[in-house]
């Protein structure tokens, strides 16, 4: 990336003024333009080499080291290491150098390996052959030698080597099909169009003769945006200019499908291709745990510095007596004596720093990273989050945020494709007020028992026939659906395939599922769209005859207009404009038709949660059409502001329509969406639905998904209301309502669980939201925002409809910045959710039908919305408690480790004498105490997985980062200090004034031997290692064989290592101070007794605290643990097999409900509530006796 940027900078400054322009000119096939064209200074473009690797062979070591030492922790340890090298320090540089070296090497190897893979991949890509037309012949070249302006031949199933302007294809109509699966994940085939004037050049000789220049913008990363112009010179005439849009641009990375070959001219190469420009990595998100970890680190850094300062000062106070500073038995060297006092003090300070630096452990960073990295595999491995239909499980893009999943307070969810399946079914259409219902509902299969349903509500009257047929034709023509005949389609479309198999083998493919549903629906109503051939759309009508319409123009859909249009010419030569779109964007443009009836039906459908579209048309006269054509072309040819001009043109064209009718498409709720939302609510999360849909539809979905309950009082903050009252009044009224309630809340519900109390739901629409956010003239915007936030805070659910993508992000930002700084999570499936996914603390993408963009930009991707429940309640909860313990424990064990060393300074004349041997200092964090905590932080489960899922209340146990609050931190620190005091003074009293001795049975009979300072240190260290490991053992609630292995294994390892380390005269060491120290210590009875005593004393307070807290003030999790233990023997075994039964039952009942729901609105409503009662099962609330819990689990299985 950097490279290309620098290169483009160089280009700009070196190539002169001309290249400052925003566009580039390309000569197709490097052909000189005919004389008379503007003077042209060739620009330099990068070659087609793709460089995704970060390093080269030469710069790997320096660059990688630089990158690594940019991390503050590594840098800190480097400094410590250098200090150790430079000054005379108590511990050898090995003690900090070895761990640092280890960390750096491991990381470097990992990064190097990854980079090597990238190099390999780069080389494979850069060397792969491409076909280039040179002098009328096809030449093979390596991809990297491709230059801008080359004409490239790409064959079927090849990927495009660079960004190409599509000149011609093997197809007569100059189209080609492309999948962009590797770019944006959309595996559907997209049609691209060749430049009109060149599409007839089919052979290489012909193509080589093209004389044209292309002007286009400089490369920019937006995949869907491109403007350019091609000037084609034919026979020395004035060049014919044609507009180029993104439909002419074949992107690198996309694959050619269903087309034998195409010709294209390279316009962006190498690192300037849109794919390469999209490499940019997202900004790093940091979790709340990491922030508190850093805060703790600062505290420890302060402790470290103050310790060093205290010791330095005391040292000089103590040394003021020259006999202490330099007694006769311990003289200084001459150079030491002559050193400057100030310098001496400073080096002493540094030496103390070095001595105590282990309090900030280098291994903590490694362990935390390993924990996150390895831990994230449990998410990808989770079978329950695997979706068979999609063939994919959860994906982890950022393991840094694992624990944040356990801290979520606000969930922002998209509606379409997230809450709902985005698997559209055509339900009905309404033509001039008459309702038509196709005879069967197709959702992957024909539903049984649906024959009895009325096909058509009221049979059409004779005169209605004409408009009816026009309506059907309109829907058959006004779309961008493609017909695909082959069977090679990906998993998502399988449902459709099955559906259409009955009649023909063709499959409809479109980027919009609504359109597919509509065309499918039309098929069932007798009008079948066959194909688009040579700009003619073919329709098979009810009489099985084929009608052909020439497709003149497509006014494509965009989310601002919320409608699309086509202009077609019928065989009779009439021009029709068919327009379909959201009711709000169609009704204002309608001048004729049964608007009232249609509007009523549309509103009725919207309330039922159906997606409605209105269809309108108008006839165009020939001259009208031609003016439209001109308008469109001039807009399309514009190089600048093309979007705007096009929008204006569309706006003008789509006027004075005649309303035909409306359609209703159902988007079913995703499986268990309601259950998931309810669980999230119970877990104390606030769920917001942000959707672009209209209010009624969205509200209906919210009711269905139990975001709003029947007793939820809905507060509306919509344009409808703000039209009547001023925004100010509405806001204040709402906040008053909410506050009345919250006043009563504090009285009534001390229990805290908000089941029976009145809850509020807020509905707000995009327009109102922007006026809330917009600063008003008197500058009271902050005020509105505050009131709005206040209202939101008191609402359990908020629905934001009519939202633009950017507004979604704005809302997330607003909540993020509110004064509690809650942790937010955004979940969505489409490109329009990307902004909010990137904005929220945790972004979750659903691998939906609208492509992979959301999943790619997210931190985690899951196949279905229901997986969010396990993701947050189980994985998030586990990761949080695991990392919280990991962080606290690391600080604790290092306090235990270093504090005795600090105390020892008071007894060794502040001489920086280390208490422990070098090997112990080095290995303490690396090997003696590292694995147990790592494994603990990977597999600890304080409460069973099923319980966590059944009882979402538990999630509140850990909310607000409660395990890493200052109180807990201080508790752990003091525990560490206490243990350290016990270790040190325990050993001190064993040694002091009395003789801790071994009676030496092992060596010689009845000898009374003396212990020195290293034995003292080893004794403290042994107690330390055992205490710290056993403390973890006491905290472990989930003892698998791995825990046993690791905990007892590392203790054993410590003993074995010590025996070995002291058992041999190590030839490479220049001191043998540890020789036999450990064995001698073990041969002494009092040492054993002392060790056991000190371990007991150090562990005692923590155990007592735990037991008393559990008994007197148990947390929810602890209560559950107790209950779980009680229940397990009888309740557990029968539960597991039944639960799997339950899920399949659930699906069946869901299907059975389906037709009934549609047939009668009343019964549907009943069905919902009935279903809802059984659908979600409340596990025993905590205070309930276990007989109740048994009965409720029975309830669950009965569904």
């Amino acid at each position, binding site marked *: 990336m950097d490279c290309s940027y620098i290169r483009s900078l160089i280009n700009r400054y070196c190539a002169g003024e001309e290249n400052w322009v925003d566009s580039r000119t390309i000569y197709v096939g490097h052909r000189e333009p005919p004389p008379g064209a503007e003077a042209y200074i060739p620009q330099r473009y990068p070659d087609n080499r793709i460089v995704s690797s970060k390093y080269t062979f030469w710069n790997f070591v320096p660059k990688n080291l630089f990158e690594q030492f940019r991390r503050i922790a590594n840098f800190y340890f480097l400094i410590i290491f250098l200090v150790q090298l430079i000054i005379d320090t108590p511990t050898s540089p090995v003690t900090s150098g070895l761990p640092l070296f280890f960390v750096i090497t491991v990381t470097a190897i990992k990064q190097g390996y*990854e980079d090597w893979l990238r190099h390999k991949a780069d080389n494979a890509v850069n060397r792969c052959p491409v076909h280039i037309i040179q002098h009328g012949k096809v030449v093979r070249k390596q991809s990297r030698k491709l230059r801008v302006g080359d004409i490239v031949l790409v064959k079927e199933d090849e*990927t495009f080597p660079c960004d190409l302007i599509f000149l011609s294809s093997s197809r007569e109509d100059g189209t080609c099909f492309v999948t962009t699966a*590797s770019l944006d994940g959309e595996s559907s085939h997209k049609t691209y169009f060749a430049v009109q004037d060149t599409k007839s050049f089919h052979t290489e000789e012909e193509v080589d003769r093209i004389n044209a220049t292309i002007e286009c913008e400089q490369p920019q990363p937006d995949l869907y945006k491109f403007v350019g112009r091609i000037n084609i010179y034919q026979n020395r005439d004035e060049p014919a200019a044609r507009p180029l849009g993104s439909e002419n641009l074949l992107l690198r*990375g996309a694959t050619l499908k269903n087309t034998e070959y195409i010709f294209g001219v390279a316009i962006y190469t190498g690192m300037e291709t849109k794919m390469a420009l999209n490499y940019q990595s997202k900004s790093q998100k940091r979790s709340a745990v990491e922030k508190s970890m850093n805060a703790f680190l600062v505290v420890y850094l302060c402790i470290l510095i103050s310790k060093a300062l205290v010791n330095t000062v005391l040292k000089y106070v103590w040394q003021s007596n020259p006999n202490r500073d330099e007694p006769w038995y311990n*003289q200084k060297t001459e150079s030491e004596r002559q050193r400057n006092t100030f310098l001496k003090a400073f080096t002493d300070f540094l030496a103390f720093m070095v001595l105590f630096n282990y309090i900030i452990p280098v291994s903590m960073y490694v362990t935390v990273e390993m924990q996150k990295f390895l831990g994230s595999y449990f998410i990808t491995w989770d079978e329950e989050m695997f979706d068979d239909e999609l*063939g994919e499980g959860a994906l982890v893009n950022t393991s840094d945020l694992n624990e944040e999943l356990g801290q979520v307070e606000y969930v922002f969810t998209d509606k379409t494709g997230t809450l709902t399946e985005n698997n559209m079914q055509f339900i009905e259409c309404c033509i001039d007020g008459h309702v038509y219902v196709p005879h069967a509902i197709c959702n992957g299969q024909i539903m049984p028992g649906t024959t009895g349903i009325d096909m058509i509500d009221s049979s059409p009257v004779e005169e209605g026939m004409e408009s009816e047929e026009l309506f059907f034709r309109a829907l058959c023509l006004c779309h961008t659906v493609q017909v695909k005949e082959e069977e090679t389609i990906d998993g998502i479309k399988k449902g459709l395939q099955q559906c259409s198999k009955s009649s023909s083998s063709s499959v409809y493919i479109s980027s919009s599922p609504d359109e597919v549903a509509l065309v499918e629906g039309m098929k069932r109503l007798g009008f079948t769209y066959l194909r688009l051939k040579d700009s003619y759309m073919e329709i098979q009508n009810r009489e099985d005859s084929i009608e052909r319409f020439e497709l003149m123009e497509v006014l494509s859909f965009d989310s601002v207009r919320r409608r699309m249009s086509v202009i077609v010419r019928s065989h009779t030569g009439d021009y029709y404009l068919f327009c379909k779109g959201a009711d709000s964007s169609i009704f204002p443009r309608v001048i004729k038709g049964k608007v009232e009836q249609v509007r009523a039906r549309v509103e009725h459908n919207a309330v039922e949660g159906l997606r409605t579209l209105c269809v309108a048309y108008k006839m165009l006269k020939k001259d009208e059409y031609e003016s439209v054509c001109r308008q469109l072309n001039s807009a399309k040819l514009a190089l600048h502001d093309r979007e705007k001009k096009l929008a204006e043109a569309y706006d003008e064209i789509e006027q004075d329509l005649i309303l035909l009718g409306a359609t209703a498409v159902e988007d079913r709720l995703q499986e268990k969406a309601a259950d998931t939302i309810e669980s999230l609510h119970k877990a104390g999360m606030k769920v917001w639905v942000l959707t672009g849909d209209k209010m009624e539809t969205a509200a209906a979905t919210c009711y269905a998904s139990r975001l709003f309950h029947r007793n939820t009082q809905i507060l509306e903050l919509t344009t409808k209301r703000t039209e009547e009252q001023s925004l100010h009044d509405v806001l204040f009224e709402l906040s008053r309502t909410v506050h009345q309630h919250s006043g009563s809340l504090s009285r009534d519900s001390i229990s805290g669980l908000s089941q029976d109390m009145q809850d509020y739901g807020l509905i707000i629409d995009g327009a109102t939201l922007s006026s809330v956010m917009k600063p008003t003239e008197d500058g009271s915007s902050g005020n509105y925002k505050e009131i709005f936030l206040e209202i939101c805070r008191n609402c359990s659910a908020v629905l934001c409809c009519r939202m633009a993508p950017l507004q979604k992000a704005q809302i997330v930002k607003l909540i993020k910045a509110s004064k509690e700084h809650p942790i937010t999570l955004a979940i969505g499936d489409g490109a329009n959710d990307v902004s909010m996914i990137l904005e929220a603390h945790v972004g979750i993408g659903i691998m939906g039908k609208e492509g992979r963009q959301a999943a790619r930009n997210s931190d985690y991707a899951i196949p279905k919305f229901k997986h969010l429940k396990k993701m947050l309640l189980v994985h998030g909860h586990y990761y949080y408690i695991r990392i919280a313990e990991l962080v606290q424990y690391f600080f604790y064990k290092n306090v235990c480790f270093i504090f005795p060393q600090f105390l020892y300074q008071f007894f*060794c004349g502040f001489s920086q004498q280390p208490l422990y041997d070098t090997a112990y200092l080095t290995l303490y964090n690396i090997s003696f105490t590292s694995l147990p905590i790592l494994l603990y932080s990977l597999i600890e489960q304080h409460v069973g997985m099923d319980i966590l899922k059944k009882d979402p209340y538990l999630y509140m146990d850990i909310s607000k980062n409660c395990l890493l609050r200052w109180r807990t931190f201080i508790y752990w620190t003091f525990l560490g200090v206490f243990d350290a005091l016990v270790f040190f003074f325990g050993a001190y009293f064993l040694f002091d004034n009395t003789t801790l001795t071994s009676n030496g049975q092992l*060596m010689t009979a009845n000898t009374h031997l003396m212990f020195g300072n290293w034995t003292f240190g080893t004794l403290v260290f042994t107690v330390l290692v055992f205490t710290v490991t056993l403390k973890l053992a006491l905290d472990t609630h989930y003892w698998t064989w*791995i825990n046993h292995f690791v905990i007892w294994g590392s203790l054993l390892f410590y003993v074995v290592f010590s025996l070995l380390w002291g058992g041999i005269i190590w030839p490479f060491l220049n001191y043998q101070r540890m020789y036999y120290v450990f064995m001698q210590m073990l041969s002494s009875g009092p040492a054993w007794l002392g060790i056991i005593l000190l371990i007991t004393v150090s562990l005692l307070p923590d155990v007592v605290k735990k*037991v008393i807290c559990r008994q007197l003030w148990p947390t929810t999790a602890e209560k559950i643990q107790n209950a779980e233990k009680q229940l397990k023997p009888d309740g557990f075994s029968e539960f597991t097999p039944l639960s799997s039964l339950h899920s399949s039952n659930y699906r069946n009942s869901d299907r059975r409900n389906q037709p009934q729901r549609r047939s009668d609105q009343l019964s549907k409503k009943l069905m919902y509530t009935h279903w809802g009662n059984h659908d979600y099962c409340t596990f025993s609330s905590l205070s309930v006796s276990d007989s109740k819990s048994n009965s409720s689990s029975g309830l669950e299985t009965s569904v």
Partner: protein
Amino acid sequence: MMASSYSAKEEDGHPSGAAGTSNSSAMKSKKPDNTAFKQQRLPAWQPILTAGTVLPAFFVIGLIFIPIGIGLFVTSNNIKEIEIDYTGTDASEPCYSCSDKSKGNSTEPTTPCTCEVSFNLEEPFESNVFMYYGLSNFYQNHRRYVKSRDDSQLNGDISSLTNPSKECEPYRESEKKPIAPCGAIANSLFNDTLKLFFVFPNGSKSEIPLIKKGIAWWTDKNVKFRNPGGNNNLTAVFSGTIKPVNWKIPVYELDTDPDNNGFINEDFIVWMRTAALPTFRKLYRLIEKKNSITPALARGNYTLEIIYNYPVDKFEGRKRMILSTISWMGGKNPFLGIAYITVGSVCFFLGVVLLIIHHKYGNRNNSADIPN
């Protein structure tokens, strides 16, 4: 961090024709394995620290610790120990004449100064007696001091003998010759000579035999410390070196016994094991019981004769001589016994408190808590 870089790799995507086609087949294998480990469902023992489970442990600890503590305390009290300070800082003390104070600033004691301290044993020391010297305010654990030695020289390495480690500075060379043994520790070897006499009621004295071997760690004497070139003809081996500046005799004249001379002199080895704390005692001699009837040291009057060489006055240190018997648990050590009794009682007490809490509050909120 790690995962993000992995995902970056994935995002690069390197589109190739092959990747696209292999996608669908890879999809099938994407299904995660249903192993207990991957699904986090490994069978596990799930202990919970409740009052119910901890209570018995507390009582058991209490019941075990208190007897141990009592045993230790009694044993420790049965150990006989007598400590005699012979520093002589005060003019009334017998060794005052020998201490630095009386001599003023002249640091060169030309003739060895001898003094005598009398003491009385009211009870006989039945079993073997250990004789220690103790120093206070002597920072053997000072960093500069601790590292000022050359272990390879002490291990008999010839090259280190002639070229000692830099750590020994400023006790590395003297008069351009390498010091053997080098370093501050060796240089400050304790060089008072202590002799013990039993004073018969009639006034005559009999010297009590002091055994000077077997006071060092066996491994130190036999492995860690070695004379260069074996034990024969140490004079020749040490010829190129010079004695430590504070020593009166060279290292090869420490003892006449070749098995206790040079670096393997046990007094030297004991001194070389630096003490952990500034107040320490080191084993000096053993007094063995002659036979089962007579105690090692009978009741009566004794005289300690000191050849006073070691200056401690300058750093306000003290010198002591200690006589002690020994038990199975080592020397006199009331701390361990008291600590055991205390901890045992505290555990017992806590057990009772927990029992009360458990009964009073346990039934209130979760009676079902206590497993069985």
